[in-house]
């Protein structure tokens, strides 16, 4: 047994000293050893995805130039075969090395099947529903990170397509609210989910990433003016859930971390939170990004933190860019908000100093 495996077994023994529970030491050591071998960080993941996407694009280019898209039935069959092959390879080998190839085959499969179904005049909604079904079956069959993530993102893409293609643009608010709720429950119930059943446990990490990216993509549609036809009077609907969740997070989760019991301090924190959140009632993308950032920081989910920060910067800029006010009024709003935030910095410092005492 190497040092690496020793570390986790030592930890296990340490835990078993305080409470008795059964554990399969061999399986733990084996999985830890394998996970260390595949501890590759973001760089390799991004490399495999980029390779997969570039390969797919070149393959699609080949199909068009070669004109191999005449038979719709052949296209659908080829598409399904591609998808099955990708899932089969992933399930059998489970090796990270093959991620690029499987992503490329998987995506090409969806493209071929989609193109074939379109040629068959199957209807766009039916095609989207078929895609959702295939992606769900994929998730049930295998739970490797990359392909599961791609499958879940395809499901999200299909839902967005169904909403906008059928001109139910305002339904996006319900979709965003649902995603926000599921994402929050998912992050805050990590312990319950990873101890529930093997499939849910194995899907935990890709599902978390997929939910986060799906949520950010969905709020993007309400964060950029003119992308879709949304009724301005209904914008607050999307923001409401994000604001509610952030308030819940601050009062029930973050305040306990600081051990704040003093009523006066609590009131100050509530006022500060409301002062930041209420202006975002008509900027649902901003409140959404803020929610992702705080939730991710709470559970120390790094990809979520980085995405939250970048989205927050983008959505705030986009909001002010789209705002139909004179530069002078915009300047006033920005300047006042800036001073208020700096004021909050000093208050937070004071609260922190008191908490440390």
């Amino acid at each position, binding site marked *: 047994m190497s040092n690496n495996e020793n*570390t986790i077994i030592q*930890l*296990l023994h340490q*835990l078993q000293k305080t*409470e008795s*529970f059964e*554990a*399969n030491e061999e*399986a*733990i050591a084996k*999985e830890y050893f394998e*996970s260390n*071998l*595949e*501890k*590759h960080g973001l*760089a*390799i993941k991004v*490399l*495999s995805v*980029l*390779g997969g996407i*570039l*390969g797919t694009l*070149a*393959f699609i*280019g*080949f199909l068009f130039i070669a004109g191999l898209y005449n038979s719709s039935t052949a296209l659908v069959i080829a598409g399904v075969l591609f998808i099955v092959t990708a899932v089969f390879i992933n399930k059998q080998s489970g090796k*990270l*090395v093959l*991620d*690029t*190839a499987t992503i*490329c085959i998987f995506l090409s499969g969806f493209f071929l099947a989609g193109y074939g179904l379109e040629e068959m005049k199957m209807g766009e909604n039916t095609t989207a529903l078929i895609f959702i079904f295939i992606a769900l079956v994929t998730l049930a069959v295998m739970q490797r990170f990359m392909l599961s993530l791609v499958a879940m993102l395809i499901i999200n893409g299909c839902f967005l397509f169904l909403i906008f293609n059928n001109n139910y643009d305002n339904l996006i608010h319900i979709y965003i609210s649902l995603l926000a709720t599921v994402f929050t429950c998912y992050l805050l119930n*990590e*312990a319950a989910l*990873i*101890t529930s059943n*093997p499939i849910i*446990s194995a899907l935990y990490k890709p599902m978390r990433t997929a939910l986060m990216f799906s949520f950010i993509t969905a709020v993007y549609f309400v964060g950029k003016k003119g992308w879709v036809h949304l009724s301005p009077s209904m914008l607050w609907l999307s923001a409401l859930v994000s604001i509610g969740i952030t308030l819940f997070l601050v009062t029930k989760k973050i305040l306990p*971390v600081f051990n704040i019991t003093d009523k006066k301090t609590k009131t100050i924190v509530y006022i500060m939170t409301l002062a930041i959140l209420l202006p975002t009632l008509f900027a649902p993308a901003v409140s959404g990004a803020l929610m992702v950032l705080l939730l991710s*920081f*709470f*559970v*120390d989910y790094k990809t979520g933190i980085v995405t939250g920060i970048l989205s927050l910067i983008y959505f705030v800029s986009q909001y002010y860019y789209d705002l139909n006010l*004179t*530069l*002078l009024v915009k*300047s*006033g709003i*920005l*300047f*006042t*908000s*800036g001073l208020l*935030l*700096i004021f909050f*910095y000093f208050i*937070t*410092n004071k609260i922190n100093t008191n908490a440390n005492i």
Partner: protein
Amino acid sequence: MNINREHIHIISKHSRLPKQSVARLLSENVYSNTNAWQKFLRIFFLGLGTTFTIAGIIFFFAYNWAQMHRFVKIGMIEGLVVIATAITLLSRLQVLIKNLLLTAAVVLTGVLFAVFGQVYQTGANVYNFFLGWAAIVTIWVLVSNFAPLWLIYLLLINTSVILYQQQVAQNWHDVLLHSILFGINAVAVVFFLWVKKIRNNADVPVWFTHTLSLATASFATIGIITGIFEKFHPSFPVLLAITAVIYTVATLHAIKNKSLFYLSVIAFSVVCILAACMLNISSDAAMILLVSLFIVAAITIIIKQFLQLQKAWNNEQ
């Protein structure tokens, strides 16, 4: 013993560790603690507050103040620049606040230049504006040694070069432009990695060197791909040679420092360049299929090699 998320997930998967215990372990060892939250909130409020305030000031001067006398306009901005730098220099505030104030002063200098250009209709080319801005703030950037400020500074220099080619040196070939940009950013990366090596207390965050390296590799890749497809230009072999040298040095550095990031960036850049070479030979269907297969096969082999390398590094530890 440092318990991380992976330890907890693996033990939970192969044991009957109760849900409550998993929750407690996560909360005590993985989730952000009081210190992390204090640091986060400080940076969040101060960073966002400063950005909003500066944006407010920029919007204020962008508004067309027909009635305001030019002396008042320019005087106000100069006043703000003086106040920001004076506080940085004379106060006993935290280093982070001082650095943010200096960043504000740098941005306000740009506003000052813009207003000056607007008032006096100096007819300056836009590249002059960025170049002048970069030149004037150089000392502040050097003194602060603050990564975000360095990033703004390099952004100004890159923008100046791009605009210079668009507005003045229109005869510059795209390959030459990308070679220059590649050179500037490569020098910056080497410089910062060197500073990090010789001075332990130097604040050179990883995100900063990674962002710069990405920009450097992007300029090299775009430049070489442009050179492959366009008519021959003398700068092309020079760019090829410099890129080969820099990539070799970067690969050696990455292996020595066990960084897969640099290796991945270089590998992806080389794959793109080779794919472009193939497409330059022919762009018929067979070649495009070959390119598709090449990309997938090349990336797969590269990832396999990286994983072996990682395994060797892990064993060394």
